[in-house]
């Protein structure tokens, strides 16, 4: 089964005359983590939103290999099909966990919701899965009935990850998953993500402005500036031997500790 999972070609998104992202093409393979880096306004979040169908592209296409092996253009799917894909085979981890969680229902329900969406109706099984997943993201099982509003930022982020992974998606989108967290909390989350991605063979697209996060998590890296991809390659290569002037500036601006 040596075939890509996602095929993005010539994708552009403009907001009126302003460019969001322009003419972006890439493939993503099963188990591969792609980091998209750049400053605010570089178009990396726009790209993530267009690829994940949260925004409609102005031009270009995104094809996805479904579980049955068939390729589908995701912008030609019905709204219902797209929503089903988002709930089952895809995940989306927002920078702000409040956007990805339901803050007024219990942690257990947050995790169980996606299982119910795919037709699981057995309360005992759903609860058992929820406890299992809370454990995998290092949340104690006795917090299952608490609402996420009672959780710290790091716990909320881990809960959001559990909520996304419970249906065993094959592709996950992450928008600054460690942004806004304390450094020690970031490290724990990164380590957790790294382990889960490897264990589950997940493909992921991670948007981050933090090159250290990209180094730790990703295999491949795309550098964006003014909506365009200006450099693309093996993560080690882009960071150790940056070619584009802007990438050299980014890499040389990292603070060493």
């Amino acid at each position, binding site marked *: 089964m040596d075939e890509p999972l996602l095929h993005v070609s010539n994708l552009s998104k403009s907001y009126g005359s302003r460019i969001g992202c322009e003419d972006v093409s890439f493939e993503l393979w099963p188990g*591969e983590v792609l980091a998209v880096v750049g400053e605010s306004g570089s178009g990396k979040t726009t790209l993530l939103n267009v690829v994940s169908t949260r925004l409609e592209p102005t031009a270009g296409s995104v094809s996805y290999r479904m579980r049955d092996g068939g390729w589908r253009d995701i912008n030609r799917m019905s709204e219902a099909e797209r929503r089903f894909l988002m709930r089952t085979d895809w995940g989306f981890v927002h920078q702000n966990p409040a956007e990805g969680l339901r803050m007024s229902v219990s942690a257990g329900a947050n995790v169980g919701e996606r299982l119910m969406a795919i037709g699981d109706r057995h309360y005992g099984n759903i609860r058992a899965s929820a406890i299992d997943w809370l454990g995998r993201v290092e949340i104690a099982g006795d917090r299952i009935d608490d609402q996420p509003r009672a959780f710290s930022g790091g716990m909320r982020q881990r809960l959001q990850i559990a909520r996304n992974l419970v249906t065993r998606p094959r592709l996950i989108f992450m928008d600054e998953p460690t942004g806004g967290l304390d450094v020690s909390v970031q*490290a724990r989350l990164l*380590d957790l993500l790294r382990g889960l991605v490897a264990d589950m063979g997940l493909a992921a697209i991670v948007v981050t402005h933090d090159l250290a996060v990209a180094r730790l998590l990703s*295999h491949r890296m795309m550098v964006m500036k003014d909506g365009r991809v200006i450099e693309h390659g*093996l993560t*080690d*290569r882009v960071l150790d031997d940056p*070619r584009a002037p802007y990438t050299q500036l980014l890499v040389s601006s990292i603070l060493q500790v």
Partner: protein
Amino acid sequence: MKSHPLAASGLAKSFTMHLRGGILLPVVENASFTLKAGECAVLAGPSGVGKSSILKMLYGNYAVDAGSIRIAHQGDIVDLADATPRQILAVRRDTLGYVSQFLRVVPRVAALDVVAEPLTARGASIGEAREKAAGLLARLNLPERLWHLPPATFSGGEQQRVNIARGFITDHPVLLLDEPTASLDAANRAVVIDMIGEKKRRGAAMLGIFHDTDVRDSIADRLIDVTAFAPRQAA
């Protein structure tokens, strides 16, 4: 004729420093050499002559401007000089190992698991991988109380031993060694020399940088003079 595990031909590399007015910094020119199975070749020459750059080109951390790096990978020949990132990662997983001078520490991961990871990445069970990792760390005299701690707070020599164990745990047919003994004491240097000898007998091809002449004399089958690949000074 059986092909070499690794053959570099006509390699050239320069850096364009865009932040410094686009000056061109040539590092290596027309580097050609081959590695044979069961030998350890050593890159020789003074500091700054491009030894580390050559290892980084071979491992894919540096892009190559010209030339080819042909490596025998699972019955095929892959040219690393223009392989895709996916191909490079596959070659690294199964064929090409690298022991760097410094450990890139992953927060929170215990030393034992840092060492075990290349084996689990190739499909070994975690139990089997940890057992082998423990054997290597014991052999390199890393105190057992450190095995379950993340190496971030270890001394330079302790981190280097974790790094060596990680690089030696798999049976990669080609292994790059970037001063793996630089911060080790005599007893541990001797262990590494033994380990390199064992790799040779198992048919691995190795290419290394060793500043310590004692170590170099005990493991080098051949020296590759890197000054021959130094670029002629640009005007």
